[in-house]
């Protein structure tokens, strides 16, 4: 297929105007994160005191913020073009890594920071939330993103009540 062929559509020009599954996934991850956060903060408070709790909360905020920015980048750029999506994600990876590094570097000497619970929280919450989210991911063409919730069938209820 050649570029001068009228049937030819470059991948650089293609985009996706459909619903963004990343936004739904990240909303679900943030929901799960708000459930997990008190547990992680409590464990850090037990091990490292109040500073540990603050550090853990900071780590969870970093992880959830990282997910949210990644999802926003993918969903926003996919509406423009796939090529931009790829570029934004690859450079976004470096950018987000740099932001996380800077966010930890700037607070590493703060009085309220304990590095061990902060680092443990970043790794555990990132990987743990992803594994938890995998249970709710739908791998079907009909429902991209999250699995649909089961609802009671009114037709079935009506037919049994009569």
């Amino acid at each position, binding site marked *: 297929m050649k570029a001068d062929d009228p049937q030819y559509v470059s*991948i650089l020009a*293609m985009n*996706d105007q*459909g*619903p*963004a*599954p*990343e936004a739904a*996934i990240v909303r679900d991850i943030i929901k799960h994160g708000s459930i997990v956060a008190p547990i992680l903060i409590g464990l850090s408070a037990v091990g490292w005191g109040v500073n540990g709790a603050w550090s853990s909360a900071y780590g969870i905020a970093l992880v959830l913020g*990282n*997910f949210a920015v*990644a*999802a926003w980048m*993918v969903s926003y750029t*996919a509406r423009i073009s*796939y090529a931009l*999506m*790829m570029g934004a*994600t*690859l450079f976004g*990876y*470096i950018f*987000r*890594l740099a932001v*996380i*590094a800077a966010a*930890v570097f700037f607070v*590493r000497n703060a009085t309220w920071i304990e*590095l*061990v619970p902060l*680092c*443990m929280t*970043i*790794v555990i919450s*990132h*990987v743990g939330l*992803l594994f938890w*989210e*995998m249970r709710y*991911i*739908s*791998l*079907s*063409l009909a429902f*991209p*993103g999250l699995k649909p919730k089961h609802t009671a069938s009114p037709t079935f209820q009506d037919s049994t009540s009569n």
Partner: protein
Amino acid sequence: MEALTRIAHASIRVAAELTPAEAKANAAAQMAGLAYGLAAIGPGIGIGMIFGKAIEAMARQPESAGMVRTTMFLGVAFTEALALIGFVAFILLKFA
């Protein structure tokens, strides 16, 4: 090449003036930085491969773009976890 030699000579001169403790801290900082850099290379390659294949899949079957993007996003997030683990190891080795 000449510039590299000059930098190496300058590094040796600086290292010779350091106390053993400072030299050890210097080496630890360099190794931690190198470890973090190496840890970021693998995920970078992995994310590139994931996106390349995902875009190929979306180009072949545009109707499956939603499903491909879902798995792609999770794959990228898992791959990023490797870089985060490298970063955490760097921070703990260097500062903790």
